[in-house]
């Protein structure tokens, strides 16, 4: 590019870069979930971890451990991330299914993840 990009343009590029790629979420049992960064950022907690400059090791390594979230719950949460993206873009109209057995545990994890 000959001329330097206008500031506004640069910001948009940076944001696109920030949203690109995948992150690894690791459950209490050590099970690894790879999700798009964009999906992970549905969680405000993860968004903060992944975007605060230099603050968290997670930002650099692209992986986050959840020693208190079981595999089943973490899987459900990943499903919610994608459901939420689709819902917001109008592509999803079906309800997000939640099994009664896991409701409270899921709620506590969702509360921690601020999502």
């Amino acid at each position, binding site marked *: 590019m000959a001329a330097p990009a206008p500031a506004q343009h640069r910001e948009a590029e940076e944001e696109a870069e920030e949203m690109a790629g995948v992150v690894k979420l690791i459950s209490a049992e050590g099970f690894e979930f790879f999700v798009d960064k964009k999906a992970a950022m549905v969680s405000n907690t993860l968004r903060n971890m992944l975007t605060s400059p230099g603050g968290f090791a997670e930002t650099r390594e692209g992986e986050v451990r959840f020693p208190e979230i079981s595999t089943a719950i973490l899987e459900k949460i990943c499903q919610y991330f994608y459901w939420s993206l689709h819902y917001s873009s109008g592509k999803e109209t079906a309800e997000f299914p939640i099994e009664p057995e896991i*409701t*409270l545990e899921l709620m506590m994890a969702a509360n921690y993840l601020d*999502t």
Partner: protein
Amino acid sequence: MGSACSRKRGQLVHEDELYSVRFSKSGSFKWLLHTLSRSSSDVLRKAQRPGPGHCPSLVELCVARVREDISRYSDFSMLPRDLSQQIFNELVEWSYLTEESLEAFRDCALQDICLEEYPGVKDAWMEVVASQGQSLLSVDISCSDVTDSGLDVLKDCSNMQSLACNYCDQISEHGLKTLSGLSNLTSLSLKKCAAVTAEGAKAFADLVNLVNLDLERCPKIHGGLVHLKGLRKLETLNMRYCNCITDSDMKYLSDLTNLRELQLSCCKISDIGVSYLKGLSKLAHLNLEGCAVTAACLEAISGLASLILLNLNRCGIYDEGCENLEGLVKLKVLNLGFNHITDACLVHLKELVSLECLNLDSCKIGDEGLLHLKGLLQLRSLELSDTEVGSNGLRHLSGLRNLQSMNLSFTLVTDIGLKKVAGLNSLKSLNLDNRQITDNGLAALAGLTGLTHLDLFGARITDSGTNCLRYFKELQSLELCGGLITDAGVKNIKDLKALTLLNLSQNGNLTDRTLELISGLTALVSLNLSNTRVSNAGLHHLKLLQNLRSLSLDSCKVTASEIKKIQLASLPNLISVRPE
């Protein structure tokens, strides 16, 4: 025929409504707003929830799921407090909380228990409420059947900051003693509580941290105010409609120098009672509506330099003494409605340039007096109903560019006068319920495209006059009941999609064609077509009006049973129907 149907607005004006310049002033519509409480159907509440654009959080989805399966749960105490609080609030909002499900919240360290108007709340519920212990910060058990013993279990919740027991008629003087231990209370509300007597009020003396105290409608409070004497932190005190409060009670308020808001409407106090308020230098809101005071009380009031709102509606004010209003330069809201004042009083308002709302309803004022309002450029609301104001006077108002609401009903104003206010393009609400107003006058107002509320109840508007209604795309309420409108005129109304209230009653020539024309006004909440030729055959046109809550078809060719049918089949929100 419309002239026979003139009507007046509600009797008492609440000054807080006055201050916020609400536009829903017709009696029937106000009532509708009050019905938007828990008692309404689930359908409605769901309709009010955020639309498809709002993506529910996973926590919200889980909370909703818990609500649906509430019978599965017996104990939430292992949850973090903020989650159990959210579940509790959800159950209350959806009316899913029962004595059984409440049990699951024992020892949850909840902070807020708001059960205002919740059905079934009684003493048996209070044990679980009290089990929240020192965590509990606010409780509202208004309208419940809780008795003294139910209230007594709260005595250990000593961190409580806010308690509301409005309309709890099972609580006695004795029960109020519990309150004296709750010394961290900053807010206490005991509306219509007969237990607040000279004896019962003793408990207040210990509540030294009280900032807000609401004793509205306490019928036996006389002699009890002596116990408020030491509550130096009090900032708001509501004693509206405590009609046993007399001048002798008032002296105990004189040292409450932090008071900012004092409501005394309909108390039995005179100028002597008001004289005790002289030292309340922080007082910003004073409401004396309906008290037997005269302009002599203005001498004491003139010293209240912080006063922003003064309500003297329905008092016994004559011109003499009104010069004491002159110094109240901070006043934003002044209500002098239904007093004996004339133009001679208005000269004293000239310098009150901060005024935003002025009510002169039914005062003996005329065109000359309006000259003194000319400089009140901050005015947003001006009430001139039932005065002798005519077209000539309106020229003094043509510079009030901030006016949003003006009431000229039952005045002498004619079409010519309306030309002088045609440039007030901040106007949102205009009441022209007046037989002298015709098509010509309305046409002059075509530039007021920001109007949201237009009352032409008794005005003589014909079909050709309705042409200019098409410019008022923002209209939310329209009343047009002069009797001269036919189906042809309704064509000019059918595209006013923002309408929530439409009153076309008394127009005897309207037929089922009108129902067909307005069938696309889906925002309608209230529809009145009484005294028209609407018939059973046209009712099916209403079925798209899903927001309709009130329908009046008195003296039409309709039967209650046919309305009932369409109500059951298509109109789930319809709760008020005429004929029944």
